[in-house]
């Protein structure tokens, strides 16, 4: 197999090169020039220069695909990556196997896994497709002692024009590698509650995270701290869920945790079905007591 892999995020691209290099030859394309992933085993890393929008990127990847004999294009599942994948798939007359957490090839078919019904099920499929989107975190990026050749490609025009850019205030931290995560949900009730959760996280040396409403609707936490189907997929040793009801989209992001501890007022909250230990109680009473005993 000969793969072309793309992401606008070079951390994700390094993960995908690492993942694909044991499955065949890999070249990579990126529209970012920060931390070029040239030490992970890609033969060539193409630097896409210009107005990097879904249409201009798709056209460049189509050119590479048709001129260089790739068997498959593998794209990191981000907002831009999904747009590129959909557009490119029409251009090269293929289907897209999307949102994959597992990808293997056998007898010319792709064998895949992805979430079904919003995270309720895992769907195993075989695909006749040349385009694939992989979930972030498909594997840890590992250098392999090689050095890729860098080549510049000038992108063509895009029909999308950038008017202005607005940097986000991201919290940093690294949820994917955190050993303990204290995660908060709508049940927190008010922004000031974050402090209660943060104290608990500090006491256990953990990271703070939240559900989609907490991070995106109310913005009590920064967007990069969202755990769930549309956010980070985490696998800490301990996941402490404070006031999280346990909607399936959230569960899909934390199912890999070793131990799940839930604190919720509502005895019938679905989170208890996905927990090892549960305390039915007010998080504003339970969390400070936990903090006190754990800090001691």
């Amino acid at each position, binding site marked *: 197999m000969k793969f072309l892999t793309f992401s606008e995020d070079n951390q994700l691209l390094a993960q995908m090169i690492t993942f694909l290099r044991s499955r065949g030859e890999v070249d990579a394309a990126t529209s970012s020039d920060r931390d070029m992933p040239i030490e992970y085993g890609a033969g060539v890393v193409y630097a896409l220069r210009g107005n990097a929008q879904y249409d201009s990127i798709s056209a460049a990847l189509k050119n590479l695909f048709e001129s260089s004999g790739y068997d498959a294009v593998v794209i990191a599942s981000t907002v831009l990556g999904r747009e590129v994948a959909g557009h490119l798939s*029409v251009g090269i007359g293929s289907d897209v196997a*999307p949102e994959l957490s597992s990808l293997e090839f056998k007898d010319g078919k792709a064998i895949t896994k992805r979430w079904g*019904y919003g995270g309720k099920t895992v769907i*195993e499929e075989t695909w006749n497709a040349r385009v694939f989107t992989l979930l972030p975190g498909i594997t840890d990026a590992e250098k392999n002692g090689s050095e890729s050749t860098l080549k510049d490609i000038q992108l063509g025009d895009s*029909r999308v024009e*950038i008017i*202005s850019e607005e940097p986000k205030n991201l919290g940093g931290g690294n949820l994917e590698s955190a050993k303990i995560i204290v995660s908060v949900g709508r049940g927190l009730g008010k922004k000031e509650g974050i402090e209660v959760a943060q104290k608990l996280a500090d006491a256990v040396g953990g990271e703070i995270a939240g559900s989609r409403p907490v991070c*995106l609707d109310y913005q009590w936490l920064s967007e990069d701290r969202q755990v769930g189907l549309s956010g980070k997929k985490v696998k800490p040793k301990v996941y402490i869920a404070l006031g999280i009801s346990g909607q399936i989209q959230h569960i899909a992001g934390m199912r890999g945790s070793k131990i799940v*501890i839930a604190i919720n007022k509502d005895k019938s909250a679905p989170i208890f079905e996905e927990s090892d230990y549960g305390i039915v109680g007010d998080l504003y009473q339970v969390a400070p007591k936990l903090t006190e005993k754990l800090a001691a």
Partner: protein
Amino acid sequence: MVDIIVLVKQMHDLEQIKPDPSTGEPMLEKSPFKMETISENAVEAAVQLKEKYGGKVTALLFGNSDAGQIMKKAYAMGCDDGYVITEYTGNNHFYTSQVLAEKIKTIKHDLILLGNQSADSVTGMLAGRLSAILGEPVLGNAVSIEIEGEDAKIKRVLEKNNYYVKTHLPAIISVTQEINEPRLPPVMRIMQAGRKPINSEKTTVQEIKNFTVVSNKAPISERKKLIFEDVDKGIEEVVKVIKEEMR
């Protein structure tokens, strides 16, 4: 004036899907169909644009026999017209994009609105595919939309930065679930919507399926589920567990 086609998806009510205890497969027949949640945001966004700029909103739904109820909800929320393409057989973005594109080509429009990633299959493939099939540009992942003359302008939310971007109409805009709070239509509107005819038709596009499902099962939960209603006892146990893992 801006004429809008809004794409509406039907999905099983996810909260009601339970796995069959013996096979682990989802018992779909017990979970009714409803309007997919981000489609609701797309309908709301379309109706708000109509209220601001004037024009007409046409809902388009590729559905099955339950689709009439979902289209009536779209009417009640403010869609002026609607088409149901029947004989939907399930998630297949390759085929769905072809079916929708065939119908879209027959409807005069300035904008196509849709959800960015449906809540059930989450593929996020339709915007890009429709863009390539129809030759219309995409403004993706919008949390706000404005029309300025011949241009559409959105605030586009990406993982690391947000952008204001624009393009010429006609265009496709995908929306996030944060763009708005879908309205609950008043009873009068719901009753009026119930009397409004639904145009249903079949597609002429031949179904192509490029995938085969090997298995589709709920992951087995091996959680201990030790739930404490005695808070102090629960705290004692949980502290022990966390201390053990912190070592």
